[in-house]
């Protein structure tokens, strides 16, 4: 049972603070994805778990055992690098068996392990080749084979798919997930691609600026973002953000954008004094067509994508996008009506970006 526990971990490079107080628990067998923009600290955190960097403060436990003092080789983890880091002067077979040869494992055991891993990854015919004779996808597989052979306590992935083209990436996402189901090993996966995070993770850890912004299942982050960063980062096309404020019209509180009423909503806790708020609404939750309480908007641009249509709209001087699987017959400069369900509106503090919720 290999859990990974990170408590109060900080990392500074000289005066620069890259990780500020990270707390995270990865359950045994869980596939956790660290996601965030470049520079958010996700790769640094992964390297701390691997032992390639030293934590400035805090504690890292693997399988319940504190590993801060242990060099990488004693942590019993395996890592797949973005550049694969295959040993160029060794064959595929020797690449995969290197770790076992270091431990002076008997030859028969090595041969078995390599053969099994090779079979799982479809590498049987490539065992005598050198890395420079392989394609990108094949090198990826060898890197994973090298990791599997060791039967480590945990797998670490550092943006392994970034160097592959889109089609190959889709395929490898599937294969990595399948492998995880078969092996059931605890895995920590780093990526900047939110699609990889959404499709592969048991839980996502969204990071920004060296801090964990939110931890949850993909749908939790999608439906219930903790702040504007998470709301904006997860989901494609991205969430729309508009400036709005709360007014009391006829005694009933409402949310207003420009001079139009968007939704009938009570003000949440934590609202700034002047009633201003940032609202977030996902493009696919906006509907065309007006009934009562619909909102007037002007069409800026219509983008048919085949799967559906993205409509760029202007409402009260602000811009938003709408996504629908229909093919509406509208054109630029048309004035249309749109509908927004108040359940789909997310409220954020206009300065801090924190999610504002209604007290229940």
């Amino acid at each position, binding site marked *: 049972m290999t859990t990974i526990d990170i408590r109060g971990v900080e990392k500074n490079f000289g005066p620069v603070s890259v990780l500020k107080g990270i707390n995270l628990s990865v359950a045994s067998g869980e596939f956790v994805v660290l996601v965030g923009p470049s520079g958010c600290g996700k790769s640094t955190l992964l390297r701390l778990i691997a032992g*390639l960097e030293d934590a400035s403060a805090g504690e890292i436990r693997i399988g319940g055992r504190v590993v801060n003092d242990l060099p990488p080789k004693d942590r019993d983890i395996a*890592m797949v*690098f973005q550049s694969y*880091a*295959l040993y*160029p002067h060794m064959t595929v077979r020797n690449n995969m068996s*290197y770790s076992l040869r270091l431990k002076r494992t008997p030859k028969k055991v090595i041969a078995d392990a390599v053969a099994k891993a090779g079979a799982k990854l479809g590498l049987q015919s490539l065992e005598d080749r050198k890395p420079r004779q392989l394609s990108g996808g094949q090198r990826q597989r060898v890197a994973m084979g090298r990791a599997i052979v060791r039967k480590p306590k945990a797998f670490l992935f550092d943006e392994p798919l970034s160097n592959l083209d889109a089609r190959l990436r889709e395929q490898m996402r599937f294969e990595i997930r399948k492998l995880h189901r078969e092996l059931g090993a605890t895995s920590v996966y780093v990526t900047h691609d939110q699609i990889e995070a959404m499709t592969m993770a048991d839980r996502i850890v969204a990071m920004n600026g060296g801090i964990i912004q939110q931890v949850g299942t993909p749908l939790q982050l999608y439906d219930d973002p903790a702040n504007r960063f998470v709301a904006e980062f997860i989901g494609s096309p991205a969430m729309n953000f508009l400036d709005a404020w709360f007014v009391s019209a006829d005694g009933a509180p409402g949310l207003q954008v420009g001079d139009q009423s968007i939704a009938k909503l009570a003000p949440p806790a934590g609202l700034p004094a002047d009633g201003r708020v940032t609202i977030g609404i996902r493009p696919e939750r906006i509907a065309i067509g007006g009934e009562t309480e619909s909102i007037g908007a002007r069409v800026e641009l219509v983008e048919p994508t085949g799967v559906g249509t993205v409509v760029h709209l202007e409402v009260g001087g602000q811009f938003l996008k709408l996504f629908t699987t229909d093919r509406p017959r509208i054109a630029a400069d048309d004035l249309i009506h749109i509908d927004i369900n108040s359940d789909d509106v997310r409220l954020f503090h206009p300065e801090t970006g924190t999610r504002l919720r209604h007290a229940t």
Partner: protein
Amino acid sequence: MRPVTLRHAGYWTFHYLLVALYVIVALFPLFWMLKVSVTPNDLLYTEGVRMWPSRTTIDHYTSVIRNTDFPLFFLNSCIVSATTSVCTTLVAAAAGYAFSRFQFRGKAAIAGLLLVTQMFPLVMIIAPIFRLFAPLGLTNSLIGLIVIYTTFNVPFASFLMQSFFDSIPKELEEAAMIDGASRFVALRQIVLPLTLPGIAATLGFVFTAAWSELLFALMLNSSSNATTFPVGLLSFVSKFSVDFGQMTAAGILALLPVCIFFFLIQRHLVQGLTAGAVKG
């Protein structure tokens, strides 16, 4: 590589002419030395300017090898140069690895220090070294020379090794360390095999530099047991018996190992220098 459309035949003839000129100028002095070395003494002064003597002889070579101490000098030079190149490469590989892989306080200071050592006149320390080495018994000894030559070459060799290490991605050692190797084992088993061309280039470069050194050898070794060939060759140049035939023969003999070595490794050397050379 700059792709240039090969349009003008005239341009290319000019190009080849210049190239030929450079090759001729590069090789001519060596050729002339060879020519004099095979010219028999009686023709030396009469046929001075001919491109090739009417009669050749290997008497000068046999004379140098049999009748002088030259073979001893040659041997001494071989020992000193080979040992120096091995020691220097070891020390420089370690230092170059440290510079390539680590960020540490004082790194800039040490790099600056190495740069400064390249700049001061070595003649400056001839006197102190002489006085330091004499009581230690390191004058008139090959070991003394080896120690000095190694030290002189370490800065530049470290710079060379650093640029060779830089060309190998850090991830390879990290992968090895995760696979279960300590950093030193990763260096030995993963990184060094990949820098073999660089090591060969550094060995060759230091060998050449040690082979050529004259002043310290002159100053520190006065007994002929520890004389290296540069000093030996200089001793042939005496005011009263200027034996060009023997001198040029000795010169050609001394030139052979270095030139062959260099010919073999120069491509790697150029690679290593071009990788990090344009740093002021």
